[in-house]
């Protein structure tokens, strides 16, 4: 069976399953709703020497030819309310993911319990909220740009975990203080050239504190992940002295993600500033600073926007380096680039928006972590052109 037939069949089976379960009439007294979201997105770059990805769960990125793969997505969600306090949510998403297909996957499936307006408990499959928008980054209709800034969100291949979270809120000083803690196991994969990095079983834990007042929102967040598997490169590790290989192995080591964000959203003006610092307790994934700033201003149905994002990583010093090998290996995980992006969102009809965006990416030639299939021609810079139609239903 060809890959495209398999893709189509998986997609149709997934949808049929979802619609089938949606058509079972819920017992009376329950609140049932069905909705969805999607993006038809096309993108191309000015440079054929590397393919930039939307995030590291994608095996291919944007090329010099227009393609729908990077940003297109379809999601369907069913909400079932058993009582005002108890509800179930299931969401399936089809998009270009780790194995190069559009096979649908269950992105959310949880039971939520809200005993009081101040407390919410959820258990099941939950989107990860590493950074402020990361649990809704597939919902293009919900944000202004074509995609969340790749320099900032692109290094996160985690979309969901099987686990639980608890959220609380309380008024404070005329505003609102909110917090959340979560923990769970990843069930995802991240492609690594023609191999897969199996993240399944990796433990993710984290939390954040939000303060909201008037148009302001400030967030401090921390998350960490402990990988349960090695990268699929044992053949490389086995060539190294054990002491060197052990410094590079990722299994059972933690990676930490600290983040800070400020949103100022007043009427037609929307601004976001986010900063993050990641560091790892192994020498493979590099310690990284990343940040972005977006400014958008709505005029009638149009929201032009401009933004800047950047990411810069640096390698850990090894106690047992093998010059020429370990430094080349560490460079695989390097990010050193800045992006100026501008574009516009047009809310041309109810529940639909069209967007156009240009990303001007300038980086160093060894900035390769967010790209696939770089050639020796890669100089770290490219321009990215994107169009998208985002909708909800």
């Amino acid at each position, binding site marked *: 069976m060809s890959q495209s037939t398999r893709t189509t069949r998986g997609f149709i089976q997934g949808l049929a399953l979802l619609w089938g379960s949606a058509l079972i009439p819920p017992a009376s007294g329950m609140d049932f709703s069905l*909705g969805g*979201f999607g993006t038809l997105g096309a993108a191309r770059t000015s440079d054929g020497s590397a393919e930039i990805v939307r995030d590291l769960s994608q095996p291919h990125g944007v090329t010099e030819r227009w393609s729908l793969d990077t940003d297109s997505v379809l*999601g369907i*969600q069913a*909400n079932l*309310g058993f009582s*005002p306090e108890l509800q179930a*949510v299931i*969401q399936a998403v089809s998009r270009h993911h780790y194995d190069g297909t559009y096979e649908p996957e269950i992105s*959310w499936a*949880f039971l*939520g319990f809200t005993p*009081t*307006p*101040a407390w919410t408990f*959820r258990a099941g499959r*939950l*989107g990860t*909220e590493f950074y402020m*928008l990361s*649990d*809704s980054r*597939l*919902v293009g*209709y*919900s*944000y202004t740009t074509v995609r969340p800034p790749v320099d900032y969100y692109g290094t996160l291949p985690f979309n969901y975990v099987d686990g639980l979270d608890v959220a609380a*809120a*309380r*008024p404070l000083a*005329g*505003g*609102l203080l*909110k917090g959340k803690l979560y923990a769970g196991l990843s069930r995802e994969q991240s492609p690594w050239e023609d191999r897969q990095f199996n993240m399944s079983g990796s433990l993710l834990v984290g939390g954040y504190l939000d303060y*909201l*007042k*008037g148009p302001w929102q400030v967030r401090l967040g921390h998350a960490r992940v402990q990988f349960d598997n090695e990268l699929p490169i044992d053949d490389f590790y086995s060539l190294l002295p054990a002491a060197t290989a052990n410094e590079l192995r990722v299994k059972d080591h933690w990676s930490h993600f600290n983040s800070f964000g400020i949103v100022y959203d*007043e*009427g*037609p003006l929307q601004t976001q500033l986010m900063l993050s610092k990641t560091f790892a307790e192994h020498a493979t994934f590099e310690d990284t600073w990343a940040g972005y700033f977006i400014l958008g201003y*709505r005029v009638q*149905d149009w929201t032009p926007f401009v933004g800047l994002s950047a990411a810069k990583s640096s390698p850990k010093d090894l106690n047992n380096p093998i010059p020429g090998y370990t430094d080349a290996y560490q460079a695989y995980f390097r990010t050193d680039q800045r992006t100026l992006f501008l574009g516009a969102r047009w*809310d041309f009809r*109810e*529940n639909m*928006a069209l967007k156009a965006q240009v990303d001007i990416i300038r980086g160093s030639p060894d900035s390769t972590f967010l790209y696939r299939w770089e050639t020796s021609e890669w100089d770290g810079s490219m321009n990215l052109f994107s169009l998208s139609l985002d909708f*909800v239903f």
Partner: protein
Amino acid sequence: MKTRHGLRRLLIITLLLGLGGARADGALVVVMSGASGVDSLTREEVINIFLGRFRQLPSGQAALPVDQPEDPALLADFYQRLVNKKPAEIRAYWSRLVFSGKTAPPRQAKSHEEGLKWLSDNPGAVGYMRSDARPSQLKVVFTLGP
């Protein structure tokens, strides 16, 4: 001929704008049932309730907001005055919360009557309407001036 048509069109537009303006000039009131036990809400509390940030009333009970989509001009006017946002921005805001399994949007009343019934049946229900359309059994807990 052309000028006369143009003038007539201008006159019609002026009239329409004038009427629309007159309609939008009236105060909007945020209302609750007389049995709610709530005397007033602050703007921040109304925002928290309608944007799903925190749905607890000063009395401690849960707030149950209700929207009026059957009157799009009223809905647009309400969110414009409350947070200076267009309905499209409010929908974008809710799409983020709904599709990340968070709070649900306010209850969408299918008719003005259904909205009124919800408000009088539920002490925690919070709605909005033009001040001249308020039945006497509903209490004003916040006023949104023009």
